[in-house]
Structure formats: C-alpha cells, structure tokens
C-alpha cells in the first residue's frame, strides 16, 4: 500500500496513483488495478494512476477507497501486460528531427536507429482520441517539450517529448518534437474499437522510405 496514494477527486471520483519511481512498473500496476476494479467501477487507467468515477448516491467515497485498497492488497507484482505488437511504418523526415538529434547529442541516423531499435509499450491513450503515450524512452531519447507549442501539428506526426514517443492521430496543437510521419490511421470513430492502439500494446516503429 505504501507505493500508492489514494486521493478523493471531488465527491464522485477517486484517483489511485502508483508512486513507484519506475514508470513501466508503475504503469503495469495501474493497469492491473484498473482491470481488477473494472468489473465493478468506471475506471480510467493512465500512465501511473487509475481514476475511478462513481455515483455518490450509490457508493460513498470511503466505500470506494476501501474497495481500491482491498484490490491493491491482492495485486502482488503484476506481469507486464500481454498486448499485441503493432508495426508502425515511419518516414523519418520530421521538421524537428535534426534539432532533436542535436539536442540529444546524436546524429539523425542514430536517433532513428534507437527509436526503431525495440518495441515500446503503449502506456496510455490520452490527450486526444487515439493519441498513444508510448515508452518510457531511455534517457538518451528524453527531451523536454518544445518551449513554444505549435498551434497545429499534422495528423500522423511521430514525435518525442518528456520520455515518451507519440503519434498525432489528427491535426492538433502540440508541443512535442516532430521526428517523422506515418500514414497509419490511429483513430476512426466508425471502427470498433475506435483507436488502433490500446494501453498494453507494443509498438515497433520501422523506418520506411516511401
């Protein structure tokens, strides 16, 4: 229990946040907790937390916290999620590629090599419909967000920032460093499920030259 902070979030929600320093481990814990609670509650797992929403006329905050604590006590050390591996072809020609590589002390080719070197975990879908937070990236690929966000980033932009890599599913404002572009459709409201990726999946980026 010491690894968790449980915070009431208004009268109709509770946030359970895993405090483990390791983001990948905290993410696995959050998803295991969300799965355990998901049959009884409206849960939203994020990078290292689970938001539980409820109707305060049916349950009290104290009852919800007790249910969360009971599940945490049984959690143990969760296995990494068994998601699919999804291949995403990328043209590494983003407008920030050279600058990002320079800031990381790498050549552009070396940045691409490292970005495609292994599959990365989808930790959360958030920010916008279908936007995946993928990672955590190693320190060698970790950059802060751009000082000035762009008002519009093109759909399909592959980007890195703050220890994550992501893909813009639509034209959106954004502060991440754009290193490439994919034609894969990340979100389609007519599809079931609407997002291509789900938390727990792994993404293998592949450089393509088309």
């Amino acid at each position, binding site marked *: 229990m010491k690894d968790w902070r449980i915070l009431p979030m208004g009268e109709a929600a509770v946030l359970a946040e895993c405090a483990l320093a390791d983001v990948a481990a905290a993410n696995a814990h959050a998803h295991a907790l969300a799965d355990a609670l998901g049959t009884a509650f409206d849960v939203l797992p994020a990078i290292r937390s689970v*938001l539980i929403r409820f109707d305060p006329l049916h349950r009290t905050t104290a009852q919800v916290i007790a249910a969360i604590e009971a599940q945490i006590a049984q959690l143990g050390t969760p296995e990494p999620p068994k998601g699919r591996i999804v291949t995403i072809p990328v043209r590494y020609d983003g407008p920030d590629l050279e600058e990002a590589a320079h800031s990381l002390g790498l050549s552009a080719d070396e940045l691409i090599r490292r970005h495609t070197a292994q599959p990365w975990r989808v930790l959360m879908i*958030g920010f916008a419909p279908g936007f995946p937070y993928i990672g955590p990236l190693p320190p060698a690929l970790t950059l802060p967000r751009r000082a000035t966000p762009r008002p519009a980033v093109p759909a399909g932009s592959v980007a890195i920032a703050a220890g994550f890599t992501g893909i813009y599913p639509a034209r959106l404002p954004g502060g991440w460093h754009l290193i490439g572009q994919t034609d894969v459709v990340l979100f389609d*409201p007519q599809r079931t499920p609407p997002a291509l990726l789900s938390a727990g999946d792994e993404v293998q980026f592949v450089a393509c030259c088309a």
Partner: protein
Amino acid sequence: MLRVISAGALCTIQDLGRTGYQRFGVPLGGAMDRAACVIANRLVGNPPDAACLEITGPGAVFEVLAPCVIALAGADLGATFRGRALPPWMAHYLAGRGELAFEGRRWGARAYLALAGGIDVPPVLGARSTYLPGEFGGLAGRALRSGDVITAQPAGDLARRVGRIWPTPPDYAPQVRLLPFDGPVPNVLIAHAWRVGTQSNRIGLRLSGPQIEIDQPRARDSFGVFPGVIQLPPDGQPILLTADAQPTGGYPVIAIAIQADLHRVAQVLPGDALRFVPTTFEEAVDAWRRLQALLASPVEEDEGMALAARAGG
C-alpha cells in the same frame, strides 16, 4: 422539422455524451448543461438522453417546416415563434410553418431545444453528441449552419405533450462550490471573482483574475480528469474543465467544482463573472441528491395552455 436559417454563435446537437470510450482518449462530451438537456427532453416525453439542440448565445433562427412539439430549457434567449414569445421551461406546439428565433440574451448562455421524438442523427460511439475537435457525432461532426435540416425521430401522439411545464428549474446562482484536491483550495480562487476568458469553449472555461501561485507545482504524469476539474497551467490562470475536456491531463489540479453545480458553469459566456465558494463532501453529495430528485420530479400539465396550443394560439 426545422431548417437552420442562422446558427448564431454556435449551435450543436448534444445528448448526455459518451461513457466507456475515455480509455481511447474520447471525451465524455454531451450537453454543457446536462440538467437543462434532461428537463427539455422530459417536457416533450423523450428519454432523458435524447439528442437536443444546444444553442449558444443569441442569434439562432430556424424555419419550422412542419407542425412539431418542442421544449425549451436552460438560458432564456428570447425565443419567439411567428413573433410570439416562447418562455423556457415548458413545451410548445409549433403549428405549422413559421420562424423560430432566439434573438436576445435575457439570461444564461445555452438554451436547449428538445424535439418530441429526439433529433434524428446516427449515434457514433454510443452517443449523438457532436464532438467538434474530433469532427464526429451530431450532424457530420460539425456545428450547424445555414441550410441544415433537423428532423426528429417518430414521436407518436404530439397533442399529449403540449402545454407541459417544468415546475422548478435548477438553481443557477452564479457561484460554484469547490472541493479541495491534494491540498487546500488556493485562497485566491475563493477570494476573487473570475472573468470568463474569450478562449473559453466546450472544452473548458479559461478564467482570468489574479495570478495563482502554488507552493509546489504538483507535477504528475498525465492522469484522468473530468468536467469540474480546475487545472492550473504554467501561466497561473485556471482552467475549469467542461463537457468536451480531454479525459487525461497533466497540469496541476487545484480544486474540483462539484457535479451538482456544473449546470451553472454551462450558463456563463466570455466576459461573465464566476465566483467560487468552498464546500464539504457531505454538502456536495447532498446537492447532487437534491439535483437528481429535481430532475426526476413530475412534469406539470397545464390544460388551459394545452387547449390554447392545440387551437393554434
């Protein structure tokens, strides 16, 4: 059946939004003023989650193409049909062709127009709500514009729905009760009136007032948020999240507006003032209980009004 002549500042089709898709990054969405949406629907005999028009500010004008029963709830935007006033919080029979206009802002920001039967657009991800940034739901995922035709699903006996009155509208005092999150509510949030900024929209209200500084930026990895959450971005001016808020956010959260007051938040526009007051968890739950009881209260029939409406006057 209505044809849009002018959509005014913003007119969208909304219901009570989408649950179950937040883990794919899809906002809850739906009516900004859920209470008014439910009441408008109940007045015309619809299920509470039927699709309505959300009419923001004055300026919307429609041509009624066929006799229909509508109800109005929420803001009083000076609605008239063929020049005759249509007060909010009741159902009205529109007997044939004519102009339905929302020409003044007497009170509030968003009026809800329910059509008996519910507006007929295909559900997307389980709801008919328009999500403008994602360009889906409602009518082709966009705001209504001149020339659009709005049709209702079959409604059965219209006459039975005419002349209904909602006895007690919700309390729209322009103050919003707050609960703390992970530390006390910053005093400055309570001590000052906040101006609704021009960049406010269905995603959130950008509030302007004194700079808010928090001791420790309570930085977190992005976590789940929802309408009512008050975030503090680096510029020190708070954002009160509303219906179309993204389901996750990374800004520090400094307070939570209680769910029972979100209909108040829906009825302000840029330039209006909003005040916050502290509350307790007990009072928040009690306020929610009272609001739900109000929304479940019986509709009153006004027989005289019904007869007059059926007679066309």
